[in-house]
């Protein structure tokens, strides 16, 4: 995984991607006890489909193996989630926390934005970890984020409410 992060940092230096942050299962692992996760979800700052295609072309031209949506980087299946799919993801990347992993610089979503993205996906496995992540979250900040990004299609605040009710 650390090798994958080094590759991502190289992509930043080459200008192939503007910025990125770790989300999904590895971000959950950053905050909680280790949980089995098979792939590395990388939220990547980009504004167009063309940039996204160019990213996959970059890997293809360098003979990286691509399986479905995953690019295998040093054996790690990496899924790139572009920021243009949601303004929440864009903001989450821009406000991500800088970290170092064995000397390698990287960024991980803050716990509030991580919860928000898990509320977007809202799969059973996301619902399971959200209560534990809430223990580390600034609830005022989280509610402010959810308030701005909730809508009829993705009622993030409503979903959080349902989780909190289930904990009663």
């Amino acid at each position, binding site marked *: *995984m*650390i090798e994958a992060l080094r590759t991502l940092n190289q992509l930043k230096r080459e200008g192939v991607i503007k910025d990125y942050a770790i989300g999904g299962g*590895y971000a959950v692992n950053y905050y909680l*006890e*280790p949980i*089995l*996760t098979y792939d590395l979800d990388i939220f990547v700052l980009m504004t167009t489909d063309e940039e996204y295609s160019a990213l996959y072309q970059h890997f293809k031209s360098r003979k990286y193996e691509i399986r479905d949506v995953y690019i295998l980087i040093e054996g790690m299946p990496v899924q790139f989630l572009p920021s243009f799919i949601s303004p929440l993801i864009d903001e989450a990347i821009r406000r991500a926390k800088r970290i170092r*992993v064995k000397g390698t610089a990287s960024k991980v979503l803050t716990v509030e934005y991580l919860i928000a993205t898990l509320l977007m996906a809202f799969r059973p496995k996301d619902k399971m970890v959200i209560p534990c992540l809430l223990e580390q979250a600034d609830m005022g900040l989280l509610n402010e984020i959810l308030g701005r990004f909730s809508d009829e299609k993705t009622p993030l605040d409503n979903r959080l409410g349902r989780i909190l009710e289930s904990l009663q």
Partner: protein
Amino acid sequence: MRKLLSIIDSEEFWKVFSEEREARRKQLRNLPFAKKIEIVEKMRAAQLKREKS
């Protein structure tokens, strides 16, 4: 663990079990990220081995 094995009362057992589990989870949460990554990679390798056999 030794403490758990010596408890006869089931209510006391589950109380101590929960406390020890929570303490262990807290310990794991506080590990450096690099260490957590190592643990996940070992878990993944073990799972892939089980799936192949």
